[in-house]
């Protein structure tokens, strides 16, 4: 066993002493849009600014996840026909997918899965090929201008490997961001949805919590109050590599056809 594992809290370990899969449950029904998560993430991880732009998108000026925004708080102002205003807020983050496209397509091995089940970029390995960026079905990872490498949330790899919870979760004043063993979080989230439904919040639904979804379940999942696309999330993402076998077979057939065409071209003179 690696020596640092002894620093992990008992609750993070399985009976055999190996770490459990850890992740985030972001309950947007209690998000107050304070952006403490964004700030804590920037501070702890030394993430540079992503440009000080004014968007006019409610209180959101960071727009979406990218190389320099690893937690992103979305603000959606909705007006019901009766004139009531509903203000949705949600802190988005890397999903740390069970089937992670970024990790699958990385040609250098820079992206790897940690023993806590999270997906992390090794910045001393990344050569900036950029393949992970369009591979991600959630638009999470991106290239940092002037640096050339790909960056994203590490689920605070340095903190978690020492038994500390990620900076965003620690800073969240309402526990909208909860960090813990994924199986426990899923149980807690299901109970929370049931409670909200009982209280008449029929819109509450989980996003990314099911291991049967297109990415094998997200390591960071959400409780949302509207359709995922309203928050900028894809409603039914499927990891691209599920079709990779068919793609390679198709390419092999096309390559064989090309060789055959060349052979046919040599039939005849000239």
């Amino acid at each position, binding site marked *: 066993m690696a020596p640092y594992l002894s620093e992990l809290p008992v609750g993070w370990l399985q009976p055999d002493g190996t770490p459990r899969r850890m992740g985030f449950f972001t309950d947007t029904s209690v998000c107050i849009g304070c952006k403490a998560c964004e700030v804590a993430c920037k501070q702890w991880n030394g993430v540079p600014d992503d440009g000080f732009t004014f968007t006019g998108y409610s209180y959101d000026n960071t727009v979406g996840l990218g190389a320099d925004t690893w937690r992103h708080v979305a603000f959606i102002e909705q007006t019901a026909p009766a004139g009531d205003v509903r203000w949705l807020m949600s802190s988005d983050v890397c999903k740390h997918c069970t089937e992670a*496209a970024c990790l699958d397509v990385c040609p250098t091995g820079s992206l790897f899965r940690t023993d806590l089940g999270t997906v992390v970029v090794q910045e001393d*390995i990344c050569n900036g*090929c950029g393949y992970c*960026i369009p591979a991600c079905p959630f638009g999470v990872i991106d290239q940092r201008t002037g640096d050339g*490498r790909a960056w994203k949330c590490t689920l605070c790899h340095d903190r978690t490997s020492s038994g500390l919870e990620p900076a965003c979760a620690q800073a969240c004043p309402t526990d909208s961001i909860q960090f813990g063993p994924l199986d426990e979080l899923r149980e807690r989230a299901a109970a929370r949805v049931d409670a909200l439904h009982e209280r008449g919040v029929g819109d509450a639904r989980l996003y990314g919590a099911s291991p049967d979804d297109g990415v094998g379940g997200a390591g960071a999942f959400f409780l949302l109050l509207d359709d995922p696309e309203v928050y900028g999330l894809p409603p039914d993402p499927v990891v691209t590599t599920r079709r*990779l076998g068919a793609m390679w077979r198709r390419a092999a057939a*096309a390559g064989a056809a*090309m060789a055959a065409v060349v052979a046919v*071209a040599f039939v005849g003179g000239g």
Partner: protein
Amino acid sequence: MGRGGEQRMVPRAEPRSYYGEPVLNGPVWKVPDVPAYLFLGGLAAGSSLLAAGADLTGRQVLSQRTKLAALAAISGSTIALVHDLGRPARFLNMLRTFKPTSPMSMGSWVLAAYGPAAGAAAASSVTGIAPRCGVAATAGAAALSPVLATYTAVLLANTAVPAWHEAHRELPYVFAGSGAAAAGGLAALLAPGEAGPARRLAAMGWAVEAAAVWRMERRLGSLATSYEQGRAGRWMRAGEVLAPAGVLATVLGRRRPALRVGGGAALMAASLCTRFGVFEAGRASAADPAQTVGPQRERLSAHSPT
């Protein structure tokens, strides 16, 4: 209005989004680096296949010039790939792993094997040194050529970009045909005395590419707009005009050098245009949240009728 002038009872709603912002982070690959890399890889592959055929059928001029063309093209392709990296000095990190799930990794290994083979084939042909090595290198380069020409199609299709991913069936044929047509046009120009196979390859390559593009745009449905509109549409249309013109000029240019040169140039330009078109289509598709959300919504409502 629906089909046949019938009024749609419920207007089809535009998919919802977050302030119209893209769901995906689009490809950051540079222009012209990556379209050029795609084009030159196909050109090299077609040239190496022609070189092997020329050796087998005793066409010495065609053999030597296609080998030189393949070497020049693959050198340019590799330079474009390295230049595109965010950290070019770390290019060799591509060879840290061998990962079949990463077409970029597989492509790097193909380049690493094909490049030296193409170089040895050309060097042996020009110098006459080590002819047996030259034969082996020619055969090796030709054997790797089909995958060299088509792996880039898998590279683009194996992303979340809707216009690329959903085109995964046709893109390998588009790229194989495009590479064959370009190599045929170039060889017909470089070796006019032995250019019969090159001319036929140019014509057949164009036919394969045109048929694959036609099929792709029909099968993509609403996603096809990425290939038909805007910058991508202009590139694709330029390729669709230049390629048949190039084939015609190459065929008619048997005894007319000016026409031959024009034909070869048009075929190569057409292949380059197609690669620019496909690349720009992916950028446009990734930037449009409706292309990401729309098909996923349709998939969800097909699975759960409520």
